[in-house]
């Protein structure tokens, strides 16, 4: 058994690169230039960066949703790069994802019951519909949703409730790893705190490993053990949240931290020049 649940080495991902019109080759555009990342069992790792940093692509690569051009990704000691969809399927149950936009990530034409019950049946985690529904009810209760939600369609729920359904769908399969991609960026502060608290509780109870992608360093600080700072498809700094946030080593990390407005009056904040030249 490998020490780390996820071990990614030298991951390079490039988009495009198909043959264009008239057979001219379009050069692939690299989004990740050799990223190393490990996630321990039960560990929550933050992946932060601004738009275009490659954080979303990195997340998708960890789940085997995009194929790296080079490098390797091991999940529980098993190489997942280059695996066919069919070979990947048994592993799918063990790695789940929570999405940024719960409206888009829930099929508008399917009731919450279907959204939550079908995956259990697919993976044979329940013998029949009734058993599956019993489990789903337990999970709904755990994420703080009333059973009545089962008969609803996604557009009939509030934003916070939809995000809870998204979380329920990810944990109902009892995965080992959950990727959370900007899951609180569209939510109000009070709803955000509820979702973060829920996630922290689930992580503890289920001993989940998590990758938490966010542009918001404050949110990452709230839930993560370690953090990777991405810029232009490279990891510029990584380490325990404690040390990265109190004593950032990289200039870009400093700029990023410095750019976050704290709810504390600091007359110098708008006055001083940014850290980089």
């Amino acid at each position, binding site marked *: 058994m490998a020490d780390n649940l996820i071990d990614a080495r030298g991951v390079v991902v490039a988009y495009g690169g198909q043959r264009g019109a008239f057979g001219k080759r379009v050069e692939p555009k690299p989004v990740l230039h050799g990223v190393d990342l490990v996630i321990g069992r039960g560990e929550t790792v933050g992946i932060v960066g601004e738009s275009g940093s490659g954080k979303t692509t990195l997340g998708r690569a960890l*789940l085997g*949703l995009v194929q790296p051009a080079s490098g390797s990704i091991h999940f529980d000691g098993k190489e997942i790069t280059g695996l066919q*969809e*069919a070979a990947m*399927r*048994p592993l*799918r*149950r063990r*790695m*789940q*994802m929570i*999405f*940024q*936009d719960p409206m*888009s*990530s*829930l*099929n*508008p*034409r*399917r*009731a919450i019951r279907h959204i939550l019950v*079908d*995956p259990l049946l*697919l*993976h044979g985690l329940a013998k029949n519909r009734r058993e599956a529904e019993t489990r789903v009810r337990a999970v709904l*209760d*755990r*994420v*703080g*949703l*009333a059973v*009545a*939600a089962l*008969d*609803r*369609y996604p*557009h*009939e*729920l*509030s934003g*916070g*409730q939809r995000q*809870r359904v998204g979380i329920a*769908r990810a944990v109902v*399969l009892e995965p080992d790893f959950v990727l959370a991609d900007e899951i609180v960026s569209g939510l109000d502060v009070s*709803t955000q705190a*509820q979702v973060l*608290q*829920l996630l922290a*509780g689930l992580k503890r109870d289920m001993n989940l490993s998590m990758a938490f992608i966010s542009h918001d360093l404050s949110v990452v600080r709230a839930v993560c053990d370690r953090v990777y700072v991405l810029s232009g498809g490279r990891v510029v700094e990584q380490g325990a949240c404690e040390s990265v946030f109190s004593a950032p080593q990289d200039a870009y990390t400093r700029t990023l931290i410095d750019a976050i407005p704290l709810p504390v009056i600091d007359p110098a904040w708008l006055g001083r020049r940014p850290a980089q030249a």
Partner: protein
Amino acid sequence: MAEIATAAPVPAAPPSRLAKTLRALVAQPKVIWGGGFILFLLLLALAAPFIAPHDPLAQDLMAGTLPPVGFAEHDAAYLLGTDDLGRDVLSRLIYGTRIALTVAVIAAVLAALVGTILGLLAGYYGGIVDTVVSRLIEIWMAFPPVLLSILVVAIMGSGVTSVIAAIAIIDWTRFARVVRAETMAQAQADYVTAARTLGFGRLAILFREILPNVAPVLLALLTLEMGIAVIVEAILSFVGLSVSSDTPTWGGMIAQGRQIIYQAWWVFAAPLAALFATVLAFNQLGDGLRRALDPVMQR
């Protein structure tokens, strides 16, 4: 007990999905009018032998070119008058709905079937599949549709089957184009990625996740296509490429009426009005369905 307080209570149990869909449909006047008229035509077609006052083929040269009721020299037995051979226009009109609806429904469904399958595959799989389907659509659309249909009828011989085949062969591209674009858009949505991470296979995703979201557009398009099929059938009848001339069709009646338009304008006007109303009804129904079935508008 849940660790966090249950957020704002989920509203009280709503009516079933079916009841809601029906209510949304009934709330659309376009669905009521368009659908009502089509339903009326359907009844006419089914009950033609019982409803039609005369045999549509029976000639009565003594009663030729009688005008509709309300005009001078009319005969109350012939509500919409007679043609130059003394055949009852109303009865021919009623029998004509049979061909019109048969062609409309079967041809549109066939075109939709072919177009939807190709569109789904092209939109979801992309790559070489998409390239092949897209090129095929482009080539197909560059071909003049009238020539194509004449070609089909020439090969298959005239008759209802040929007309249906011609329409399906020409018009599958309408469906393929729209379904392909819609599938591509839906495939970008996170719920498709979610289905992948849950371990669902590609076909399951295509037919269980994506197809239901493409269905409303498809249904609207299908209804519009039925209207188009009615016109195409009339055109082919008009140029004599449809069914044999002794079966009453609206297109055939228009062609015949055109020749005697100065002596008996009603032979021309009656089928034209029927054609116009039918196509309008299909279009209204299609538009109403599209509005009623939008999941987000359906509240």
